[in-house]
């Protein structure tokens, strides 16, 4: 492993505590930072946004030694702003989703597309190699998958990555911010209108066409699937019937 020679960038957004609303480093990005720290190498933290946010300093406490700041007005195009600063890195890490704003999870993809890099998302562990990196992805139902991806690459870290961000106050005092002046960008009008989430979303459904009695039944009668019933045969036959069912539906592969 020659990981120490690698240049690693971590994209850092501003987050907020969901209970108190207090600004903080973005939780998912902290996981990316911690994973990157464990890889060693030459680490740069990059944030596009308002330079005056005090909570950004907490990234230092969580182990970033420096923070490159790309000033960007509220609502600006984060991905484009970041891309201006991201040339030449071997690995670009980011959290899955920002908790402070739109949180679309699109930024790493846009960065990868613009830079022409491969991207792997839902990553929980990383091993660096010479030409490629091996990552472990979290899949549904607790499953895992290992993927080898050529470098340079973009990695989006899964929210349940197996690392614990470590906050050390002494490091906060030692961190420094470098402001990078990005080329001016045309502001884009957002098509979105934001409002406080007060109600649960309304389900998209077809206009009700069922009869009154049918509406009643659909509320009070448990769903009946009428699957196969096997009553005859020995317990051994029945055990085989279960295995056959599982095989038929590819639920077991033996």
């Amino acid at each position, binding site marked *: 492993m020659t990981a120490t020679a690698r240049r690693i960038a971590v994209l850092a957004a501003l987050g907020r505590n969901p209970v108190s609303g207090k600004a903080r480093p973005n939780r998912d990005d902290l996981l990316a930072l911690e994973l990157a720290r464990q890889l060693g190498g030459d680490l740069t933290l990059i944030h596009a946004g308002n330079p005056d946010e005090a909570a950004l300093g907490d990234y230092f406490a969580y182990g970033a030694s420096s923070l490159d700041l790309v000033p960007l007005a509220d609502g600006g195009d984060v991905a484009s702003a970041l891309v201006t600063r991201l040339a030449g890195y071997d690995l670009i890490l980011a959290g899955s989703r920002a908790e402070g704003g739109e949180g679309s999870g699109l930024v790493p993809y846009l960065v990868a597309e613009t830079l022409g890099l491969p991207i792997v998302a839902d990553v929980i562990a990383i091993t660096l190699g010479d030409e490629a990196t091996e990552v472990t992805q979290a899949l549904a139902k607790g499953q895992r998958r290992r993927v080898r991806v050529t470098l340079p690459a973009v990695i989006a870290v899964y929210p349940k990555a197996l690392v614990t961000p470590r906050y050390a106050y002494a490091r906060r005092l030692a961190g420094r911010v470098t402001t990078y002046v990005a080329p001016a960008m045309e502001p884009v009008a957002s098509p979105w209108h934001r409002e406080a989430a*007060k*109600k*649960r979303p*309304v389900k998209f459904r077809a206009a*009700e066409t069922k*009869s*009154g*009695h049918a*509406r*009643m039944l659909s*509320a*009070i009668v*448990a769903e009946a699937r009428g699957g196969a019933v096997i009553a005859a045969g020995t317990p051994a036959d029945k055990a085989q019937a279960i295995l056959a069912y599982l095989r038929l539906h590819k639920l077991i592969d033996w």
Partner: protein
Amino acid sequence: MASYPHLMAPITLNKLTLRNRVVSTAHAEVYAEPGGLPGDRYIRYYEEKAKGGVGLAICGGSSPVSIDSPQGWWKSVNLSNDRIIDPLARLSETMHRHGAKIMIQATHMGRRNAFHGENWPHLMTPSGIREPVHRGNAKIIEIEEIKRIIKDFGVAARRVKAAGMDGIEISAAHQHLIDQFWSPRSNFRTDEWGGSLENRMRFGREVLSEVREAVGPDFVVGLRMCGDEFHEDGLDHETLKEIAHAMGETRLVDYISVVGSGADTHNTLANCMPPMALPPEPFVHLAAGIKSVVDIPVMHAQSIRDAGQAERLLAAGMIDLVGMTRAQIADPYMVEKIRDGREDEIKQCVGANYCIDRQYNGLDVLCVQNAATSREATMPHIITKSTGPRRKVVVVGGGPGGLEAARVARSRGHDVVLFERGDAVGGQINLAAKAPQREQMAGIVRWFDMETRRLGVDRRMGREATPEMILGEQPDIVVLATGGSSNMGQVPGWGFEEGLSVSSWDILSGKAEPGKNVLVYDVMSAHTGSGTADFLATRGSTVEIVTPDVKVADDVGGTTFPIFYRRLYALDVVMTPNYWLDRVYREGNKLIAVIRNEYTEGLEERSVDQVVIENGILPNDGLYWDLKERSVNFGQTDNATLFAAEPQPALSEDLSGDKFLLYRVGDCISQHNIHGAIYDALRLCKDF
């Protein structure tokens, strides 16, 4: 320990802050004293819930505001008179002392009533359409009457406020007068009170304005309404959402309470207090639908029985307040137990609907599994330790009566041995739970099972108790709760001895295999007969159910018989009321049942493969006669003190050495029901 942050979070309605989200929603208690006044029993019933931690109780389901909406049938609270203020004030003061809030439901029932009795009023409804469930013949309401009733609402609301209550809930659910105006099923008017939805809503809107006018801006006014009537010609969910939105927009109401299902036919009525056959929270989607169109809190009851379930619904943002009304009838201390992390000690409602089925028969609401509910003056919900001598109590029989006796005696601090011949406790309830969609009857046993184990009752299972075994324990008190067995010998012609017929228990217990063509003869017309017919038909038998009663399941209440009927009709079970079973004889490989018409004495025959008979039970009293003479009290329970809820006089006897007292509870005396067995045990053992 599980926590329930949403359930236990306070909420503010208008200016009223509730300590948690648990509500006891309005129901007819049938406890009011003559004239519709809440008395001691009524107040104590609610006080117990307040002590138990309920956030808000809404009392007085269907309390009429007008003199021509009779209250006598449900013994409900009468808001049409100033005499109500003082007793309601006592109730308010009591609830507030324990940190709970109290509101009352107010309504005019319109056609949903019976004209006979009290003042024999002519019932009123928008278009004079008769209400089927209550046989509510009614006249077309006139505009003068409409205006007068609107005023009545306002006057009643003033009385409620004067009594120091925290709010008033206006009922527009269950087809009361307001929703009789709303519903195209009952409103065919062409004047400004009918026709368009706007016109149909006029009456409700004016009632709300009048009430708000009467109580001022800071008093809580709620509205209870339906979420879907489930009738083709009735109000559907979308229309009710429109109505809810409109009512919310009036800014006159502080919350909306949503009920699923119409209530003016036997079949829809059965949904309103969903019995155990229905899935949990079957209608919460309707409440959530209404919530999506209003910006005031939404309350919903209907089969929310468990803290985890309630927390899930609140956390999902479907509703803001959970009605857990039957849950607190079963255990008024439910909230406290949830709060303290003692969820496993909650006596959970199983949806047997004994409470509501009694109410629909005009009887006071009682809980099938909690004999202390509504008897708070005499029966304790929380059993305290005895200050008298510590005794050895032997209870024989692990059915509901025996379990309650063991639980209560143990809670009094005595050493309790419980003998049960089966491998599991539960007794006849275990059989009752075998019938389709009656499985949750086992929930009654579940609590007693866990409680007797938790309390440390010495349970001896799997062996039939003999007098020697009982006396070998050197008991001070013996309580027999040995239940009974199928009463099949009453009519020799049934041929039970000869194997021509089997009992319902034989079928439910699996002792007898279901036959192909089966005649079920149900003398009792209670749950067992219909449950057995359902059990058989579900397993593919072709079934006819015969009863001498006027209708099948005649002794099953108004919210439960429709459940049986839904299933029996769907399974093509033929119902034949008004016939006696005279005899059964064999012909070839068939059984011939001879039945006799109650009214003509005419005989008919049925050729079947199996005859199943439900004729109740005979007490198992063998042990009693064996022990009676040896006991100090000769097995006698003193009824005067028992009925007065006082200690049995014999408890003060000297019980040293071999001396012991002998008592019986439940079916081993004569057939009662689950509530009867539990009540017997509680009132006897609470003073041990």
